[in-house]
């Protein structure tokens, strides 16, 4: 799949990704804290006490490029739909747990990897770092799946 015009696979619906602002970004997908509530019984059996609705992801997107992200008037709480760069992988017979970025599925053997589409809330608005002489701009943003 060729890169989009923004030179990145990342899509932030509801915010946008300016050109040259997200090349070489790093995205993490981390299960939320509430997703892991495991107690062990007195007989040694671990029990998952997490709520099914807690099976969500946190994500941190960070990048150093030449353009700033479209962070003006973007504050925590903004809902954006993220076409993730990070991939999830599933068994060939299983169904994806998230909506799939069209054309992102890659089948390898008995497994399929894909890029999920996540509806997320910005929990930390983009932070910006500007290097004047090199004109490099570093930024990062934290989101959590709604």
């Amino acid at each position, binding site marked *: 799949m060729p890169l989009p015009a923004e030179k990145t696979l990342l899509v932030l619906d509801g915010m946008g990704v300016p050109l040259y602002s997200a090349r070489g970004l790093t995205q993490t997908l981390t299960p939320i804290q509430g997703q892991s509530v495991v*107690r062990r019984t007195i007989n040694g059996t671990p029990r998952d006490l997490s709520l099914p609705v807690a099976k969500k992801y946190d994500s941190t997107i960070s990048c150093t490029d030449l353009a700033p992200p479209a962070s003006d008037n973007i504050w925590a709480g903004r809902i954006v739909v993220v076409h993730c760069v990070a991939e999830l992988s599933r068994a060939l017979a299983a169904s994806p747990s998230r909506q799939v970025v069209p054309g992102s599925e890659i089948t390898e053997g008995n497994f399929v990897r894909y890029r999920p589409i996540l509806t997320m809330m910005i929990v930390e608005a983009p932070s910006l770092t500007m290097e004047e002489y090199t004109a490099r701009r570093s930024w990062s943003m934290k989101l959590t799946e709604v």
Partner: protein
Amino acid sequence: MPTILPPSNQFGDAFYGGAVTGGGDVAGPFYFAWINAGEAFGPQHHVMHEFIFSFELDQSEGNFASLNIEIENPGVGGLLRPGRKLRCWFAWFNPETEEIEPLFTGRLVAVPTNLQSRVVSLQFTAQPDDFDAAKAEIAAEIRAYGLPYWDPVFVDESHEEDPDAVLEAIPKLWHVDRLTLETTLSDILVGEDGVVAFEEGEAFDDGLDVQLNDAPLDAVEVDATVTWKQSHVGTIDMGGYFFEGRIDGLASEWPKPGGSLSGGYSVVSASFVGYRINLTQVNITYVYENKEKEPTDGDLMSHNESYSGVPRGDLRFATRTKVTQANPEDGQGYEVDLARVGISVGQGLGRAKASLVLGYGANRDWEERLTFTVHSDLQPVLRAGNDARVTERIVISGRDVVEFGLLGSTATSYFRWPRGDVSVRHLILRAVARLKLGGRVVNVTWGCTFARATEFTCRKSAALADKRLQGGYAIGKIIAYKMAGNGDSGVFDGSVTIGCTVGLGNAIVEVAGDPTYVEEGYVTRPYQMYENSVIAIGANDVGYSPPIIVPNDDGLIFPLTKRQVVLREQTIKEALPGPEDQEPPSTVFEVIGGPQPEQTNRPGAQIDALIAKAEVEAQRAAERAGRDIVYFEMELKAIDKGKFTTESTVKVQNLVLPKQYDLTTAEVALLPGLVGPGDQFLPPTVS
């Protein structure tokens, strides 16, 4: 991923009505089963019906064992489902015995309110449904056993059926077994079911704690009182009485049958038989002999006359006598009649015989007060402040012992007699029970493995040998224990607290004492009294000397006799003021017929003078007798009123308490690191 149901778990969705999947946890090493009431522990309970993340099982003396568990919320169809089982068995696999052993059975105390949480807490209590009935049954046995541990004299009527009231003189607490739910009594100092012993090193290093409670109870003062009405009904024959004089008033006022007298007396029978009498016997004797050598013609030569008797009829007597008087004209004698004027005395002159039988109804308030103090033989325990001894006081009023049927209605003492002596023992045991609890001043707590903790019950004692303890050793009744487990941390352990007395471990020595009443062997107690005797009672850990009681009374012994009740009895004759000093009537006699004596020096005149004098005297005597009013006064002891109080004290030996913790030893082991070579103390260095 499919839910794993281990083969031993037979309860899946069906158990919870299909609302929750998964059923229970894998069974073992812990087991938890929901049960119906009355299910005995068996293989069917070797299951795990819940996912239990942690548990805590504890019990303190006098309370039910409780089990608190954290479980995964089984959902609405679980805990609140109608018809749900509310009781449980909780057990574990003992690796030493390789048996599945029960740890607890009980019923759910309350439904948790945090049902929205994923983890809920449940509390169970090992309380039998028939706890009140079981207590009542044990209490009834104690009441049936009776003295000296149960004395209804000192039990308030409202608490007669109260099971807890039977423990006043018994140093025990209620205990319910966490496995059998059997209700029993357990001593507060020594466990009935043995000692759980811990050798050096068996207790956890951390968690050893020795607490000295507030100052020990040093003494208990007892102030006990019993009351009763001393009552008796009987009769007293006061005997016969004789009165003479003016008895009209006495006759009318003499007590009449059926009448009542003050002081608690009544008249059962009375008689007063009187008759009028001529009171004064008159004796008149006239003797005259003419001694003249040459009597004159007509002179009276001699005269003898006497009269003796009691005037009759209207007390007027008249006699005639004749005197020979010489006629001065012819010298011939002739008889002269002399008439005497009758002496009349007033009405009411009489004699009487009387009798009197009194009835009495004694109804007197009696109170007997007994005071004593029981001290404990304690090791010296440092106290903050002024070293003031801690004393508790028991003030108790017993029932009316006559109404209670323990004493005859005429008794003057209760505590002196055998039944009362047992009450004394009971009162001492009440004080002993409080002293024993108050003597448990040292609490020692330590941690141990879970396996050891399963041995604990509140019917046992526990002992610990640890060089960190003063004396290196402590033993005491288990007053609390706990065993707990947490799946997250993987910590499964227990702890125990024992209560230790700081007695001296002495023994009571019985002493026969010195007889004080009569020679030894003549009579036995309670007639024989002994000084300085010591009788061991209870668990032979306290002794006392039966009090020598001298009732404070007025000496009346029923049935009463005249001699006991008469204070004064007196017949009084009171002369009315009368004409004693007045001149006698001018006419004493009248001579009827014959010439009047004209010359006073004549013999006849002399006779006349004699007669007149005698009659005057007689008249005066009669008149005096007629004027004497007879009174009768009797003063009796009042028996319907009065309150008698007897106060006595009892000598009680010091209560002997076991030395379960030794505060007096000089040996104190120190923590590792503070002991240098040769076990010398190394003072900490300051860097």
